């Protein structure tokens, strides 16, 4: 396991020695392998280990400090640095209609998350869930069922997504819902027409919060996907779903590093309560044990 491998690397480093380029090389390699196996993006890993190397070399190994712990601490701190400070997430602002928009690739968990968000804020707000996916068979039914079985108001109509969202905001105001959650259809970041549709929705309703919803099991390509969604929409935060899988979730590091946007929430199951605020420390230990 990683901790034992790092121990072996520093076995020969005695007290009052320094961490040198030579003995760090193997430790760096082990970290590199662990991060790649955790799906952290290749280019992000390269940057990460270069910085670890620079910060570790020349560090004095004081006689009562275990070099393994020292190296580990540097790595741990670097992961926390890459993930950014704890994210306050999103808060309901009083006296206005708070509008949240969910976007992402096909099957990432947006529709389920729409219901979870409503549930998460049910005591702080009166949610209106909006079905703006007009493409996927029975997408509106899926969301309507989730809304109805959890006693949430639901809005949709037989129009295009921009119109649905605009009318939903008016409906919310009339019916005193101060939190509107817009569920959109899954799409590829390279589908120009569908990306434009998201931009049109944004322009029409000016959401307070746009969340990029991503699957925690996603691989190397998520960096390009996240960048593209961010460039088109200037997203406010990220929601990582299926965190209850045994995926190490390296996407968290890559997405944050490349877009600067933080993970606000994680989905930890299929039920409406399976939703939590994200804390960076959880990923650090998951990534490197």
């Amino acid at each position, binding site marked *: 396991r990683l901790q034992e491998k790092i121990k072996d690397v520093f076995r020969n480093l005695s007290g009052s020695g320094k961490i040198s380029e030579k003995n760090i090389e193997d430790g760096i390699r082990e970290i590199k392998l662990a991060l790649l196996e*955790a799906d952290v993006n*290749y280019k992000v890993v390269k940057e990460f280990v270069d910085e670890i190397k620079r910060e570790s070399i020349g560090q004095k190994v004081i006689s009562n400090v275990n070099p393994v712990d020292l190296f580990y601490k540097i790595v741990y701190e670097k992961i926390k640095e890459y993930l950014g400070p704890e994210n306050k997430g999103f808060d309901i602002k009083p006296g206005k209609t708070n509008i949240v928009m969910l976007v992402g690739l096909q099957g*990432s968990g947006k529709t389920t998350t729409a219901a979870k968000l409503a549930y998460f804020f049910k005591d702080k707000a009166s949610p209106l869930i909006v079905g703006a996916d007009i493409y996927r068979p*029975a997408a509106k039914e*899926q969301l309507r069922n989730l809304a109805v079985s959890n006693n949430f108001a639901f809005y949709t109509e037989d129009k295009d997504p921009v119109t649905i969202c605009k009318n939903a905001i008016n409906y919310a105001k009339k019916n005193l819902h101060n939190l509107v959650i817009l569920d959109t259809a899954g799409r*590829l970041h390279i589908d120009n027409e569908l990306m434009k549709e998201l931009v049109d929705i944004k322009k029409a309703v000016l959401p307070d919060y746009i969340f990029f919803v991503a699957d925690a099991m996603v691989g*190397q*390509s998520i960096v390009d996907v996240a960048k593209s969604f961010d460039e088109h929409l200037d997203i406010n935060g990220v929601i990582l779903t299926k965190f*209850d899988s045994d995926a*190490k979730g390296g996407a968290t590091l890559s997405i944050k590093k490349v877009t600067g946007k933080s993970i606000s929430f994680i989905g930890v199951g299929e039920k409406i309560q399976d939703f939590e605020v994200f804390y960076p420390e959880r990923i650090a230990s998951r990534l490197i044990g």
Partner: protein
Amino acid sequence: NLFKSDITEEIIEKIEEDLILSDVSVDTTLKIIKRFREERKKNSREPIEIFKNIIEEIMPDNNLKIEKGRLNIIFVFGVNGVGKTTTIAKLAKFYKDQGFSITLAAADTYRSGAVDQISVWAERVGVHLVKHEGKSKPSAVIFDAIDSAIARERDLLIVDTAGRLHNRENLIQELEKLNKILKTKAQDAYKYNLLVLDATTGQNALQQAKTFSEHIGIDGIFLSKIDSTAKGGIAITIANELKIPVVFVGTGEKLDDIEDFDKKDFVESIFE
């Protein structure tokens, strides 16, 4: 000759990066590079051609034998959101166009809107769907679907199941039970266990494949969403470690967005 070996090292580094960025595991990438170095000694072909050959050899051949004149059952499973239900619609159209008589089983009785979703697809393709209204169990739907397919002398029964994470023991046990029902109740049928894998998935795909393989066995893989920018290198890792073939790929959200898996095309796309 020294100059030539320098070029080769550069090429190896570039290939290593390509493979990792394609979601091939570090382990499989290193194995491929090791094979390349051995091949390179006795083979003066272009390095990239040697790499392509090595990878093509890793990927097993198509083993799917759907034939008329008997009941064929495709049992479809995989983790949440990978494209199982949409894939079943595509498979139904694919085989209907070849003259197969088909029944679909709506055995995802759990997720909101799941039965509605497959109902829309069944209607669009024009195939019979066995489903239960209201609360029901997957085993009950499968029982009825097998009876129905046999009574109507169908050539093909495709079974949809709920998405499930491989680390959810109770859900895997449920899948084992459904697999057993299919084996025992339709003993004379040709049964094919099809894992649907999302091409955008990272290294977790190997764990998914290992778990499903250990518990119910996987005959082949449907690699969905290769129209995304992900390369689907997970298929190479799984081929290398578990010897399971990819038989189809999903290239979009419409009924015709399905293609037979072509090793050459796949390997070409990894390196473009």
